């Protein structure tokens, strides 16, 4: 059966991550869950309640905020690396963000003090990585 999408393209949201080195590569780790974001392939949501994720009446899915300002409001800007992410597949929109089925970083922003992560993250994910002041949003 051919499934026709409701929209074409991706939603673009904002996230914060921790960074850990795994297998010699710098990888993004979820701030909340013990889950890393694979390099070169999308992260796919799953739910322990045995239904396709994300589902409307659940809390599952890959989360992203609509803006950096919202990330700052909930103090995610202090967590480490920030970034814009492509979201696609099944998407549950909210007033402040989305829960999505698939996601992949679009652009990463590294705080000035963590400048050593710029090259390793660029090598891992193949996306632009720039320095940011996470408190003001100023990008260099």
């Amino acid at each position, binding site marked *: 059966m051919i*499934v026709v*999408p*409701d*929209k*074409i*393209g*991706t*939603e673009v949201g904002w996230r914060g991550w921790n960074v850990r080195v795994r297998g010699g590569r710098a990888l993004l780790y979820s701030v*909340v869950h013990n889950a890393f974001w694979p390099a*070169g*392939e*999308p992260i796919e949501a799953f739910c322990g309640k045995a239904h396709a994720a*994300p*589902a*409307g009446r659940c809390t599952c899915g890959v*989360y*992203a*905020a609509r803006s950096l300002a919202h990330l700052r409001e*909930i103090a*995610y800007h202090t967590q480490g690396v920030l970034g814009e992410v*492509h*979201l*696609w*597949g*099944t*998407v*549950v*929109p*909210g*007033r*402040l*963000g*989305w*829960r999505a089925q698939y996601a*992949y970083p*679009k652009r990463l922003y590294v705080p000035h003090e963590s400048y050593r992560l710029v090259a390793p993250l660029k090598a891992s*994910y*193949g*996306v632009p990585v720039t320095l940011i002041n996470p408190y003001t949003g100023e990008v260099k």
Partner: protein
Amino acid sequence: MNIGEEDEQYTIEPLENPIPREEPTAPPEPAREPERVAEPVTT
């Protein structure tokens, strides 16, 4: 992370693959031997 009040879900599919392809890297140039300068012939 709070995403606020939710609306109905939908499906969205990218027109292009959002995952960057690895850039092909140019093969390294073969090392060249240093040029030899002909020594002057003295007779």
